[in-house]
């Protein structure tokens, strides 16, 4: 037990270093626009089975923020991608083929690697139990469809500032 805690502490330290490095990276991105290819941009992963929602969200996000945006429609594929690339932010629909949003969130929260990854749940459902369940599983934000684009962007911005 003691050892486990110890290793967790080490991990925390490492990740906070990483965090610092991350900030350095992104600021470097902005100052030296042409150098972008050498320092890979942080990623935002959008997971939604509906083509239009995916396109809409990625349009909203890409307009405001300078990150690499990747979108997936299948839950399992999304998780596989996330595990490989560790995005900064995951925008997650609840109803997905393969694996639902809650399940992905649970997996992400159970994995040290995603410590700085922020997760936003997006869903057509607005039942309070779902929102509760989402926050129980420590989603950083819960947005219900339909949404106002400006509000959506504002909430994402808040999260990204927190993450930085």
């Amino acid at each position, binding site marked *: 037990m003691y050892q486990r805690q110890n290793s967790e502490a080490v991990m925390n330290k490492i990740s906070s270093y990483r965090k610092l490095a991350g900030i350095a990276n992104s600021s470097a991105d902005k100052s030296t626009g042409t150098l972008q290819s050498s320092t890979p941009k942080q990623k935002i992963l959008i997971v939604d089975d509906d083509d239009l929602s995916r396109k809409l969200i990625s349009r909203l996000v890409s307009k405001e923020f300078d990150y690499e945006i990747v979108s997936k429609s*299948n*839950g*399992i*594929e999304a998780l596989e991608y996330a595990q490989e690339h560790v995005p900064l932010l995951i925008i997650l629909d609840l*109803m*997905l*083929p*393969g*694996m*639902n949003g809650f*399940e992905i969130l649970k997996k992400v929260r159970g994995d040290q690697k995603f410590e700085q990854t922020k997760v936003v749940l997006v869903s057509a*459902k607005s*039942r309070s139990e779902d929102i509760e369940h989402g926050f129980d599983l420590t989603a950083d934000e819960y947005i219900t469809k339909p949404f106002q684009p400006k509000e959506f962007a504002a909430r994402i911005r808040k999260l990204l500032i927190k993450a930085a």
Partner: protein
Amino acid sequence: MLDSFSLFNFIEQFIIGYFFTINTVYLALIVGALIYVRKQLLHSRSVEADALFKTELFKSISILVPAYNEADNIIESVESLLKLEYPEYQIIIVNDGSTDGTLQKLIDHFNLTKTDIYFEEQIKHEHIRNTYRSPDNPFITVVDKENGGKADALNAGINIAETELICSIDADSILEQNVLKKLIQTFIEHKNTVAAGGVVRVINGCKIKNREIKEIHVPKNFWARLQSVEYIRAFLFGRVGWDYFKSLLIVSGAFGIFDRQAVIKVGGYLTNTVGEDIELIVRLHSYHLRNNEDYQIRFLPEPICWTEVPTDYTSLRNQRNRWHRGLADSLWRHKYMLFNPSYKHIGMFVMPFFLFFELLGPIVNLLGYAYLIIVLSLPNLFNLTFILLFLAVSFIYGMIVSLIAVLAEEIAFKTYSSFKDVAILSLYSFLENLGYRQIHSWWQTKGLIDFFKGKKSWGKMIRKGFNE
């Protein structure tokens, strides 16, 4: 000499007449069904509800999953059930005394804890050892009971369910994500619906990646291909046709939604039959017609459920043998409805049709083929006219019916992903009439014989599981 001549003449007329009638009826069903399906598909948007789900006044559903030795599949199945589109539904998994660790898998995966449930045994069933729920997921209940068969497991689930509707499925059925939202349309469209089924399709051959059906193809296996044609002809358009006349007698055990109170009122599933799905529907008809209560049993002509069909000779034979025993048993139990005007069109028309064409049909088929062989082999009975006519009304006409079914599916649904699939299906609709139907008739006849001998067992089916 004249007597025997006229006897043979009579037999020949009977055989020709029989084959002609049955194929014509099927053809009419398919063509009628096609017109009806197109209309239904075009109009279905008008009963797509959205406001309804913003109120609390929609119907909640419990999905009942009977599981007997399903350790290989069960987690996959339940996980996919958790992703259905519907605002409120429960999943009740009934472990029917499995011996392969099905229960343990469920406990481990969903982090279940023993939780007592306060319920009343309104329908009898085998002893329940324990009930489980998960603190993480309030929508799942697992019931662990002594083995008692599928019907018995479903009965236990019906008792425990607290929702207005129940949905019975096979543990290995793969459901479309919007199945509940689709099927509730039948309840929106028809008042007093007590049962509803939908199109069951063959999953063999489909490409599944990451628990999602990516491409739909015809199966690679010979037997499964034959069944694909059969599923389109009989289970898709056949049932839509019956539905058109409000005469649906079968809702597949692989997927069906029922009004819970209606099922409890008629006493739940019957446990000592192999055809519990047909039997329940017949009993629902019987009960409501007898008591003069308004009711509807409907079929939604949209593909909603996928099932793995047997791919080896023995499994298929056993399955069909069992289905036929089930049909025989259901008709036998409710024989009082036959030609009884108080059971309206069901008693006067549908039940007799099922008796003479579906149940006894295979025997007549076999007799027809036997007679053909006799005529061909005995020179003094040789009758070219009969042979030609027989070929025409049984083989060629049968092929036309199957082919039109494939065409109708293509017009209405365009399910398959490529042109090649349809071409293969068309070829198999010839093969279906050359050999398969004959063997099928034999299996069914054997089933009928077994029924009279009192055989009740299910027969074994080798399942392969979905993870390929």
